[in-house]
């Protein structure tokens, strides 16, 4: 029984309460202190708890109070658990989170809502920590919804612009659609497992029993398949996968540090975390794993394709996030949970770095985000350029940066599934997609780098002289993240490079290969080398292509995209995000709007306002009889509805009964 675990989410929560209630009176100085000390404190507690996780003690538990406790029916305690997996997540959240808090001091200076900003950010940290520390699904759902709420509040942070509010609302509602899957999955867990505890849900024996049973007499669908598919649907909402990815690019309306923390490093990865947490459950359903791999690979390709033509620097990064998350899901689908989590961690480092770097550029450019109005910034912002370059190399998968190791592990697991033992054609397609995406990633990231920092300056003349390097906390956070992006990969150096997969072992997600014979091990290693070299070539190819296309060979690129009809078409598709928003608008939003509008129009407007109110108003004026209006107006209509309702119900009842009775 550990008592300090609660402090991990509690400290940021206290920060939220203090800043939220008294922030206005405190002034920015105190607000910054409280706001940053809260996640730093949580980091310290996490660190000391982590130190307690030795080989002997592999988890810490704390029951805070019995939450919903019906003896024998449903027992859900408010319980926190700290094991390797949550420890890793907590370290990322508090570590990267603290850096982003510090960065925000510089970035948000002078903003009218400074205290509000820090309050929300602290609240987000608290909920995110609850999400990863929860020992059961319900508590996790509390964090799950809480981070959604904070994300909504922070996307709409600059609410003076209506578009930001709309983006916030879109994010919230799309997430709620995903929650629908989460909730149903949770109910099914109660039905089939009788519990929401992760201990029960990951017990392989119990799972085997449940997997054999079918869901509600639907023999075709195994219970665990249905449950995991529902959870995955929930994960697609939070982690912006097809079909629910539409909210993430719009979410870039929030302040850039928010994009870095919530929409790149932490919240959007909670879907991955959910899958890792329930690894045995997911593994029990090959159908679901195939679906996850397919969706992940498709999303990765799809988002990378869209990223090609985005001109807003943050939008490029947003689609790149969607793409990288697709990668992680692809890894999960391939059974490489450890690789997914590893990529999650390194991605948190380099994507936070890239976002904060873009934030520094945006800050320097006085809130200009369009890359067409940048260019040549290398001279004025050498430090930021350096940081951004490191981030780009890391995400492209260049050794020795962090992305290389994690991406390599994912591609290798795909490679093994595609060409190793028991390979399937399906897996080969998935691998092909993800392999292609690796090159595309390198290409569009280099495009982003080149458009922003290289070439000729296209900066508007009035801002060109005001561009300045960031200082203080902004530089510090960038520097720290750059170091993490450089060395972070050594957490999981593969065996063939003489490493020992530290993170995989620590989180308990690693699947041992030691049982293999020497010959098999030999093949295994050979395949690993092949995969590594292939992916390296692909990434390097993407980078080189990007370098020339956005450098000396720009003419070739222009003729390809503006003269070649296929190029034009592709650019049109990519530039319009493959028309997914439009599709959803037509298929989902419009019908609901129309239905609601019809109800509003026919009942509230037409019937009541026009016919009854306006229409009878004429009569009223003519006769001067007020009560007439009441008697000839509404009530008969209402009585009609009432009477018809009664008749219909009676009719159905009698119909069924006489039908059954005789």
């Amino acid at each position, binding site marked *: 029984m550990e008592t300090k675990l609660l402090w991990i989410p509690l400290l940021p929560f206290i920060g939220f309460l203090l800043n939220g209630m008294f922030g206005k009176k405190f002034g920015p100085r105190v607000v910054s202190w409280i706001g940053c000390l809260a996640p730093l404190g949580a980091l310290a507690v996490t660190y000391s708890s982590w130190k307690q996780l030795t080989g002997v003690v592999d988890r810490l538990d704390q029951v805070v109070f019995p939450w*919903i406790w*019906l003896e024998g029916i449903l027992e859900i305690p408010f319980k926190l658990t700290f094991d390797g997996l949550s420890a890793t997540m907590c370290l990322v959240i508090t570590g990267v989170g603290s850096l982003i808090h510090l960065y925000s001091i510089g970035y948000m200076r002078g903003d009218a809502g400074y205290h509000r900003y820090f309050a929300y950010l602290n609240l987000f940290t608290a909920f995110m920590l609850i999400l990863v520390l929860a020992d059961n699904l319900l508590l996790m759902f509390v964090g799950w919804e809480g981070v959604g709420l904070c994300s909504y509040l922070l996307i709409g942070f600059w609410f003076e612009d209506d578009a930001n509010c709309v983006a916030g609302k879109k994010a*919230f509602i799309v997430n709620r659609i995903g929650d629908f899957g989460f909730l149903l999955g949770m109910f099914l867990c109660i039905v089939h497992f009788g519990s929401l505890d992760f201990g029960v849900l990951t017990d392989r024996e119990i799972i085997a029993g449940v997997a054999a049973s079918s869901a509600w007499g639907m023999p075709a669908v195994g219970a665990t398949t249905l449950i995991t598919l529902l959870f995955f649907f929930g994960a697609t909402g939070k982690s912006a996968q097809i079909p629910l990815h539409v909210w993430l690019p719009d979410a870039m309306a929030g302040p850039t540090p928010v994009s870095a923390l919530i929409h790149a490093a932490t919240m959007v990865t909670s879907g991955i975390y959910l899958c890792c947490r329930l690894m045995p459950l997911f593994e029990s359903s090959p159908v679901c794993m195939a679906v996850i791999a397919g969706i992940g690979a498709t999303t990765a390709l799809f988002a990378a394709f869209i990223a090609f033509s985005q001109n807003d620097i943050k939008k490029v990064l947003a689609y790149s996030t969607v793409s990288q998350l697709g990668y992680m899901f692809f890894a999960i689908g391939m059974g490489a949970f450890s690789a997914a989590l590893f990529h999650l961690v390194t991605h948190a480092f380099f994507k936070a770095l890239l976002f904060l770097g873009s934030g520094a550029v945006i800050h320097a450019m006085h809130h200009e985000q369009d890359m067409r109005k940048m260019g040549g910034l290398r001279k004025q912002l050498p430090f930021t350029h350096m940081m951004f370059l490191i981030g780009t190399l890391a995400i492209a998968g260049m050794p020795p940066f962090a992305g290389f190791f994690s991406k390599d592990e994912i591609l290798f697991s795909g490679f093994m599934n595609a060409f190793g033992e028991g390979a399937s054609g399906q897996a080969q397609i998935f691998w092909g997609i993800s392999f292609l995406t690796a090159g595309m990633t390198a290409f569009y990231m280099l495009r982003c780098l080149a458009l922003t920092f290289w070439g000729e300056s296209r900066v508007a003349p009035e801002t060109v002289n005001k561009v300045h390097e960031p200082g203080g906390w902004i530089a510090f956070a960038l520097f720290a993240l750059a170091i993490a992006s450089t060395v972070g990969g050594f957490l999981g150096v593969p065996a063939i490079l003489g490493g020992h997969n530290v993170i995989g072992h620590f989180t308990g997600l690693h699947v041992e290969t030691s049982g293999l014979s020497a010959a098999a091990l030999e093949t295994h290693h050979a395949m690993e080398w092949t995969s590594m070299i292939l992916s390296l070539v692909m990434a390097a190819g993407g980078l080189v292509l990007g370098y020339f296309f956005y450098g000396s060979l720009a003419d070739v690129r222009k003729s390809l995209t503006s003269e070649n009809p296929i190029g034009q078409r592709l650019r049109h598709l990519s530039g319009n995000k493959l028309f997914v928003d439009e599709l959803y608008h037509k298929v989902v939003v419009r019908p609901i709007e129309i239905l609601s509008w019809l*109800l*509003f129009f026919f009942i509230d407007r037409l019937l009541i306002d026009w016919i009854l109110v306006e229409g009878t108003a004429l009569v009223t004026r003519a006769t001067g009889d007020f009560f007439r209006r*009441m008697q000839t107006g509404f009530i008969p209509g209402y*009585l009609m509805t*009432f009477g018809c309702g009664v008749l219909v*119900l009676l009719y159905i009842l009698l119909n069924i009964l006489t039908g059954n009775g005789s």
Partner: protein
Amino acid sequence: MELLISPTEIEAILPAGILFLTGLVLLLVDLGGKERADSGMNPKNHLVFIGCAGSVLALMALVTGGGSVVTSLYAGAMSDDAFGRFAGALVTLALLLTTLGAGGYLSSIGQNRGEFYSLLFFGAGAMVLLCQATNLVSIFVAIETLSLSVFVLAGYTTDRRPSSEGAFKYFVLGAFSSGFLLLGMAFLYGVSGGSLALSDIAANGPQVADDILFAVGVLLMVIGFAFKVGAVPFHSWIPDVYQGAPVIAVGWMAVAVKVASFAALLRLLVAAGGGETLSRLIAAIAVVTMLLGNLAALNQTNIKRMLAYSGIAHTGYLLIPLVLGLTGTGFESGSSMLFYLAAYSVTTFAAFAVIATLSRGQDRESIDDLNGLASKHPMIAVVMTLAMLSLAGIPLTAGFVGKLMIFRDAVEGGYIYLALIGIISSVISVYYYLRPVVAMYFREATGDQHEVEHPWGLHLALALAGGAILLLGIDPQALVEFSVESMRSLLGG
């Protein structure tokens, strides 16, 4: 024959008695004579104090008394069990909050008169009796008494046209629905061999599958109750009445009438049964109610009207446990309904109390009138946000736990489609529940619309309701257990 009243009978009727007596006292205390015209502006704290004292006393009588299940009190007219006391306590709690808020709101519109309070208390007394009634006649008398009180409350502000209009409509439609209730009772009386007691109906009444008249009787009674709780297609009065009636009375109507009616309906169905066919019909009503309520709420600009449709939608959710109970899996899921009612009560009351605080007799009831509230009155905005989140069913609020319990029951009972539609429609509902939140936090105030005084009673009521939303969301344990216990007492297990 000597007429006897046993101590248990006195104990059972004590809460309702206290409420009626308080109503009488309130009526007499405020007899001002002819100069009363301008006295409606006074806050009249003494009335609020008497009212609070009365409702607290009644609440104590409800909570402390009872213990064991005693049936057939007053020759079978009522019974004393934890179920009735639980529902009665919910009503009384709502009464306490309404009384607290009434003084500040009514004086702001210049209508602060003793009649309002006594009507509240007479209605509340009838509702408590309705929760305990086990005889068709006592059910009917209680329903009519509470309806009379609510009709008058709806038309309380006689100088406002929408108010009188709403009350008139409510009255006519209410009388119409009472007819169905009565007809249903007549059917049951005839079919069950000439007894009015629910226990006799349960014992002698033929099952639905066998007897058409019995099924028709139960259905007609269900229709009568469906009108009271606003289930589609018997809901048409709700938007107009909610829009017209004084806000604080709307809060009371929305909460208490629903609690008492659902309690009585549950008691009736537990006793009478109804079988598969009736459960299918109620399931259909539930589906239509959930969908229509939520869809119609989407485009409303008047916040009272929006909440009216939202209330209809919540009626739909509340019908789900009845469906489950009638299918033979048993009425254990009734405990979810009790919990949901509690969660719904505090939440809805909080929402209406916020509008009462802001409206202040100037009809500021558009969603735009909430613009920028967060910067002017952060605490009021926080309570409103909590209420909206709870209505939408976001975790850590009471509404989430309630929805969780109901949908879990639905899935466990094999009614996956009800849970699906429920969850889908609550996803839709997030859209309109967010609109007030967006208005409060993300928009600028225009003009002086939030220049409110600070009526202590309303603020206290707001704080209590907001606290309850959070408490029930974070630590619902005690209440969940209590509702399960109450349900067991009704089922006699």
